[in-house]
Each structure stands twice: as C-alpha cells, then as structure tokens.
C-alpha cells in the first residue's frame, strides 16, 4: 500500500486550495447578510466618557450602532482566561474584567467600544468613523518597564502594580546551592521579542440568529470550534450549547492566534440577535495587527552553573512576561506551564528554579503563538549553553553531550517525564549533515572575502500532545485536553472520520486518511475527514500545541480498534471462521491460509442490512472513541545554523541551515518536511526580522508590512532536513508532533551562529543588520576597554 503510514501522499486538500475553491468564513454569504465594523480606541488608556451615535445612525443603510453597556446589559459575560495560575503565596491570579465592547475604560489601541451594523461592509466602516467617542485620556504604561515602575498607571483596579501573578516552579534553594557549588556561572539577560502572528487569512466571523428556533450559527476562523462553543456558551452566555452551532470551515493558518475567542465573535453573535440579521465581520490587515493576540514578549535574567567537568550544577531563571491589556484565553499558561517545565532542555539538570511574573501593559493581549512558551524556553536554555561553552572554552557540541539525558523515561525536576529520544545520535546526524568538521576551512575562506562566518547550535526539546487531562487540571487548566473521533464505515465501504482536531494548514485530510488507509488497507481516496463543525463532530478540543497527531490521531486509532473488532465479528460469523484467523488486507477480510474472504464493502453492507449478523449484535458500523493521553510527547531536535556577516554593514546571510528532528513515527514525510520548513521560516523571522513596536504612548508603530518585517523566500536558505525515529511509547502510533519544532528550535541556532561570527554574546532578537552592526561595534569597544 503506497498511501499508508510513512508515504509522501500528496495533500488531498490542495486541489481546492490551489484552484481557488477553498471555502473560508468570509466566503459565507447569507440571504439577510449585514456587516459589522468596530469603533476602536485610538488611545492606549482612556476613560470612555460618552459615545454619540446620532450621526452614524442617521446614515442610510445603517441598521444599528451597539455599545458595551447594551452588551453587558443583555447579560453577555466578560472574556476570561481559562487557565488559573496561582502566585507563590497562594493567591489567585489577578484577572481584570474584559468586556467584548469596552464600557468604562479602554486599555489598548484597538480596544473596541462600539459596533456598527450596516447593509454593506463599506457603509459599516464609514458609519463607524461617524461615531463620536469622547475619551478622557489616562497615563499609559506601554512597556514592562513603564508598567512595573513605581507609581505606574493602574491598568486594572484588581491588579496592584499591574502584576497578574508572581509564580515559581522548581526548588529555589536547590538551584541556589547548585549555583554556589559551581566552578563557573554563566549569566545572561535576554529578551524574547514580541511577535505578530500574521496568518494568511485574517480573522472573520459570520453570525446568524434564527428567531424561530432561538438558535445561533457562527462561522468563524477557529482552530477549535468546540472550545469556542463551550466558552461562548458557558462563560459568555451568548446561547446554551445546544442552541449554538460553531463552524470553522477552511481556515488559512492560525499559529495559535485563532485558538482564542475574541470580542468580535461574541459581538457578532449578540448583534445578530439584536438586529435579527446575519452579521459578518472580516478583519483587514491593519485591524489584524492591532487586535490579533501577539506572541512571546519576555524579559529574562538567568544563571547557569557548571562544575569542572562542564556538568550543569544549577539553573535559575527570572522571567517577566508581558500579557498585554487583558488576559486572553490561554495567556496565563504560556509563560508558566508551557515554559518553565522545558527548562531542563535535553539535559540532565538536577537543580532548577524558574520564577515568572506576568504583567499588564496597555498593549494588545499576548497569548500562544507557534510553540507557545517552548520557544522562549528553548531560546533561553540554548543560548545559555552556547554562551557557557564559549566562556568555558569548550566546544559547544561537547558541552551539550556531557549534559545530555541518556536514558528514558527521564524525570526532570520541573514536572516533565521525557518519553523517548536519542539526543547524542540526533546531534551526530545534524553535525554530519552540516559538515561541522569542514567549518574551520569555510570560516577561513569567508575571512578572505572579508566576511565573518559563524556556526550555532540548538539542541532543544518540546512538550507536545497537549495534554493529560488530569495533570492539566491539577495545574489549573479549565478544560480537559483529550480528543475524540468517530469512524463511520458506510454501507459501500467508504469511511468517514469525524475528528475534533481542526486542520488549518496541517493537511489532516490527508494524514488522517493515511492512518485509516494503513489500518484497513483501502485507498486514501475512499476516506474523508470531517472536522470543524460542532453539529457534525461529537466534540473536540481542537488543534494547537502539536496535538493533532499524538492526541487526535490516537482517538481515531482507538475508534478503529473498535471498528476492527466489530468487522471481524461480522466476517467471522458470515465466513464461519474464528475471529483470530482473520486478517484485513487487500480490500478484504480474509481467513488466513484459505481463499475464503469477504470484500471490505461486503462487510459494510452486511453491517447495515443486518440480515446475517451474530445474534444480539447491533446493526451499523460506526464507533466513537475519546483518547486522553497519559503523558506529553517530547519531540527533540538538533539544529545547526551557519551564517556569514558583513562586518561593515551587519548584513547577515544564513548560508546553511540543518534541521535534524525526532518526531517519533512519521505519517507523511512530505507534510512533516513542510511543517519543518514553515516553522524554521517563522523562527528565522523571529530571530532576524520580526518585532512588534509600541511607542511610549501605546501607539502601535509596526502596524503594517511597511514596518513589520515578515521573512520572504529570498531571506531564507534551502534547509537540510533529516529525521531520526524514536517512537513515543505513550500513544498507539508512536507519534510526537511536528508543527512547532521549527519555530522553537531555529531562533537560538540563528543567534548562536551570529554571536559566534561577531564574537559578542550580547545580541537580542531581532538581529537586524543595524542590531548586528551595533553589536559588532559594542564588542570591539568592550574588548578595547579590557
């Protein structure tokens, strides 16, 4: 079978995507379609004194103008953060109130205060401009420094000093003792730059209220439509779950930014009921920059201690995380449980302590973005290792090897139990692929051309397959993180798989079909994957955290186990054979060692005609399963980046990029390679180009592609991608997840390479030509001063 597991099957969904036949939320057009435009604050912090809607309402074609007082008056609840984090002193996190339309105060530029519903999108936008909002501006805290300063403006009344929580993980005394006992301590101050997610398709929502049925339908750009329905129903009181259908049709990329429930969906649903019209809103790119949840934004100081043999004796981390003006849905978990438990990296470190303070600022909220917490951890750990190696005059690969975890499972002091891996072998593979042995000659040759050549490593680990529900619950998660699946064998033998995972670029319609094709030995064309509709799929927790393969596919496998058991019972009965003698292959159920068989579709038909089933068996052939993982999965990687820097201009070229990954079992190597390419591109974007900038007044200065640099093809090298397979023992397929690795592993490899080239460890992302040039100058003057 050439379409089963391990084959580079071409993506089934690409035919419609590449011929313009994808159906996205904005393509939905209802008979009574009206359009929404939001009136947004131009101020980062202000009191809303009054909203004058007269001029807007007077315009022909304007249906209504609605505000936050009406919204809260109708009982629509505040937006919430679904992961409760407690401070070290036991106090709960300080979650400030967040209404979908601001009532008293606006807290970031772009905060919505009113919505115009009109007959056309253009008219709605023009009318939104005619809404007069009277603001009383307040002092602004747009940066961590400003928000944490004495006497800083208070953004939420219930968060004194703008502090959301002061949290810690690990054993502080042990980490201190480890550092004290160290022969050498490496200290670094790092920032993890703030990023804008920029999926190709902007966010959109189409909400319709059916007054006859008192029922809502929401089309939305979501990575997790069931979670959206649950939250909209249980917390925002928009409608009870059985009166709300959420559909996430084709979605053009998410990278985390479409996990959350945003004010716009809530407002559109409510407005559809208020106006009795279908209400559509689609973000434009400017609005996306202003209102899509941002990623990263950490400031960290860390110390790592080493003994005389280069073994790590202790690691202590102090991080401040900017969560923006409000706590988005999963924001609290990103700098805590998705970050600190990764501090052990690929290394056997006994003494770790990580302290994290989360802080409000007058900026758009910050939440998960491709990797979510794990890129921040990998960046820190891998820059520490490389810097330490330089300070210890050791080969950075050798320092890593001396500290690698050697046996599995491995329990770290920060919650995680690593499942499987072979870190030394993975690094061997990467070094060979990168021809590290030939690097000195390449460096010398580059020097002749006046270029500084550098090489940097990143040997990182991630925790994917979110997540064991019981463990997540004990750490504060508001939901379970299992996944569900239904496998329907139709009377003609074709198969539909209903999954709670959601595909928005990952290629699930192909890879999920491949595992079914493998199991029942039928062509992938006979399998279709149904996802993204709460009326079709029983339930699901959606796609993020590289969980679709380890969790979503595992649910499908469990359901297939049940289907197979029933298929064998039906066939054994019809063929008068023992179930144990049956094999499923070549499109049939066969009795081993005989020519007796039932064709696959004959089994399907038998199940539905029910003319000849074993006594007591229910007709039909469809099975449902829920899979709750027993552990995270732990993909690991060894990346090696090689750069050439022009010392006169700081212009840096990535001349080689090697990515050796261990994702466990690989379902479709072509899709996995694509995921690595995309992830590495985003990682290089973070390392060298991307940076969200607010001015001191909280005005977004990087509000368009003129000022926010995304990586383009010409900025990126050809990647050398390779794989090692150590299957995860914690799920039936042995998969680990591959969606985030590139974005997690690439930034430290790039910065380690550039700092190697320029001989100065003090360089923050993004390493633009200007920043590199300054670091070269600073390095020279530091040396001159010594």
């Amino acid at each position, binding site marked *: 079978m050439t379409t089963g597991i391990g084959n580079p099957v071409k993506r089934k969904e690409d035919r419609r995507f590449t011929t313009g036949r994808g159906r996205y939320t904005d393509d939905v057009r209802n008979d009574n379609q009206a359009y929404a435009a939001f009136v*947004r604050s*131009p*101020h*980062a912090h202000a009191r809303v004194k009054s909203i004058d809607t007269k001029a807007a309402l007077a315009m022909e074609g304007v249906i209504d103008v609605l505000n936050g007082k009406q919204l809260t008056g109708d009982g629509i609840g505040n937006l919430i953060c679904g992961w409760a984090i407690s401070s070290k002193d036991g106090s709960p996190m300080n979650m400030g109130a967040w209404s979908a339309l601001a009532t008293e105060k606006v807290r970031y*530029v772009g905060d919505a205060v009113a919505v115009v519903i009109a007959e056309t999108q253009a008219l709605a*936008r023009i009318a*939104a*401009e*005619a809404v007069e909002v009277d603001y009383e501006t307040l002092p602004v805290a747009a940066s961590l420094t400003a928000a944490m300063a004495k006497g800083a403006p208070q953004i939420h009344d219930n968060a004194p000093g703008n502090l959301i929580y002061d949290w810690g993980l690990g054993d502080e005394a042990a980490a201190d003792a480890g550092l004290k006992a160290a022969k050498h301590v490496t200290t670094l101050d790092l920032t993890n730059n703030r990023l804008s997610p920029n999926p190709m398709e902007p966010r959109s929502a189409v909400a319709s209220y059916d007054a006859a049925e008192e029922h809502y339908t929401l089309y939305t750009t979501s990575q997790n439509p069931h979670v959206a329905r649950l939250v909209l129903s249980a917390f925002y009181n928009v409608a009870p779950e059985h009166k709300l259908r959420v559909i996430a049709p084709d979605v053009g990329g998410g990278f985390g930014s479409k996990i959350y429930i945003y004010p716009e969906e809530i407002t559109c649903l409510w407005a559809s009921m208020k106006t009795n019209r279908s209400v559509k809103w689609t973000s434009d790119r*400017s609005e996306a*920059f*202003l209102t899509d949840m941002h990623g990263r934004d950490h400031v960290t100081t860390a110390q790592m201690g080493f003994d005389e043999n280069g073994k790590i004796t202790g690691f202590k981390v102090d991080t401040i995380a900017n969560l923006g003006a409000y706590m988005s849905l999963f924001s609290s978990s990103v700098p805590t449980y998705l970050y600190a438990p990764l501090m052990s990296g690929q290394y056997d470190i006994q003494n770790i302590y990580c302290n994290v303070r989360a802080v409000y600022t007058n900026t758009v909220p910050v939440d998960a973005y491709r990797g979510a917490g794990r890129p921040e951890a990998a960046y820190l750990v891998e820059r520490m290792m490389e810097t330490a190696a330089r300070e210890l005059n050791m080969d950075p690969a050798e320092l890593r090897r001396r500290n690698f975890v050697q046996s599995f499972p491995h329990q770290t002091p920060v919650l995680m139990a690593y499942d499987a891996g072979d870190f030394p072998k993975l690094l061997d593979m990467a070094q060979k692929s990168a021809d590290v042995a030939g690097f000195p000659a390449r460096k010398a040759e580059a020097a002749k051309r006046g270029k500084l050549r550098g090489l940097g490593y990143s040997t990182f680990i991630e925790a994917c397959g979110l997540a064991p529900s019981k463990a997540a619950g004990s750490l504060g998660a508001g939901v379970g993180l299992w996944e569900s699946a239904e496998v329907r064998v139709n009377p003609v033998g074709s198969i539909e798989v209903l999954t709670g995972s959601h595909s928005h670029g990952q290629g699930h319609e192909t890879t999920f079909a491949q595992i079914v094709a493998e199991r029942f030995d039928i062509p992938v064309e006979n399998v279709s994957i149904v996802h993204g509709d709460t009326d079709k799929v029983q339930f699901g927790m959606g796609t993020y955290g590289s969980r679709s393969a380890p969790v979503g596919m595992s649910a499908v496998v469990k359901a297939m186990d049940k289907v197979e058991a029933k298929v064998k019972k039906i066939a054994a009965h019809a063929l008068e054979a023992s179930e144990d003698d049956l094999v499923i292959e070549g499109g049939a159920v066969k009795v081993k060692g005989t020519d007796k068989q039932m064709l696959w579709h004959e089994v399907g038909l038998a199940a539905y005609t029910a003319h000849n089933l074993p006594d007591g068996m229910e007709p039909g052939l469809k099975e449902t399963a829920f899979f709750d993982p027993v552990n995270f999965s732990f993909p690991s990687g060894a990346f090696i980046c090689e750069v050439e820097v022009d010392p006169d201009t700081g212009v840096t070229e990535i001349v080689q990029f090697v990515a050796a990954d261990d994702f466990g079992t690989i379902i479709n190597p072509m899709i996995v390679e694509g995921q690595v390419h995309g992830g590495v591109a985003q990682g290089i974007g973070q390392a060298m180009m991307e940076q969200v900038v607010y*001015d001191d*007044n909280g*005005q*977004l*200065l990087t*509000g*368009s592609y*003129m*000022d926010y640099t995304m990586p383009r093809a010409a900025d990126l090298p050809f990647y050398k991608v390779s794989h090692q397979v150590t299957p995860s023992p914690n799920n039936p397929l042995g998969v680990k997840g591959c969606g985030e690795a590139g974005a997690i592993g690439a930034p430290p490899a790039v910065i380690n390479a550039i700092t190697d080239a320029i001989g100065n460890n003090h360089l923050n992302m993004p390493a633009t030509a200007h920043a590199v040039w300054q670091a070269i100058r600073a390095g020279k003057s530091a040396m001159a001063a010594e």
Partner: protein
Amino acid sequence: MELTGEYRIAAPRQQVWEALNDAEVLQACIPGCQELEKTSDTEMLAKVTLKIGPVKATFGGEVELVNIDAPKSYTIQGEGKGGIAGFAKGSADVVLAEDGDDTILTYNASAEVGGKLAQLGNRLIQSTARKLAAAFFDNFHERLNQSTPEDA
C-alpha cells in the same frame, strides 16, 4: 516628535503678532484648513484636512492660545480628532524677536499622533510635519507681504 524652526519675516513685530492672532490669516495660511472659527479671544475651532502617507483625514478640533506675552510670544496648542484615522495633538512655542525692520520668528513644536496615523504613517510624520510647517510660514510670509503693499 519635536520640530523647531526659524523664519525671517519682512514685517515689523507688531504686525506679525496681529497676524498670528487673526483667525482669518491663520485659516488662509494653515495648509488644508477648511474652517477656523474664533470662539473667544484665545480659543478657536478648526477643521483641517491632512494627508499623511496613506492616511487622509479631516481633523476637527480646538485650538487655544496660552502663555500670551504680547507681542513677543505665545504657545499655540491644539488637539484634533480624525475619526478612524486617529488623532493628533500638539503645541508650539512661538517667539517673535525684532531685528531692524524685520521680525525673527522661532518656533519649538511637539506633536503626538495616535490611531491609524501612528500605525501607518509614523515614518512619514516627521517629514510631513516639516513640510506643513514650511508651507504655513511660506503662506504666512506671502500673506503679510500682500497686506503691506506700501512696503512693495
């Protein structure tokens, strides 16, 4: 954003001062000014259309004269709202010094923009502001020359 400049105007200080306090003169000289209405001796309502980079908007706002030390100096400050384009606010300290028959006008201005103006136009604000200031003083100079034909 800070902006400073100096102009030599071929008119006596008193005349320059009066022109700087004359709503009609100001309206004619401020680039894109559609309305300027005096609401008191020191307050005016203004409507100005501006284009900064890709953003074009009409700003409505109040202008106020403070720190008046006639005929030597004042501070002109204002705040304008441009709807979805955002807002602009700023102030300028204007000082008039006599130099023979001429007047030396110096100004020291600061401005702040928000909303779409900042999001899309921030790179262009400094150069646009400089251009607008130059246009204003060119217009102002020309206007004063017109109103003093005896000097011609």
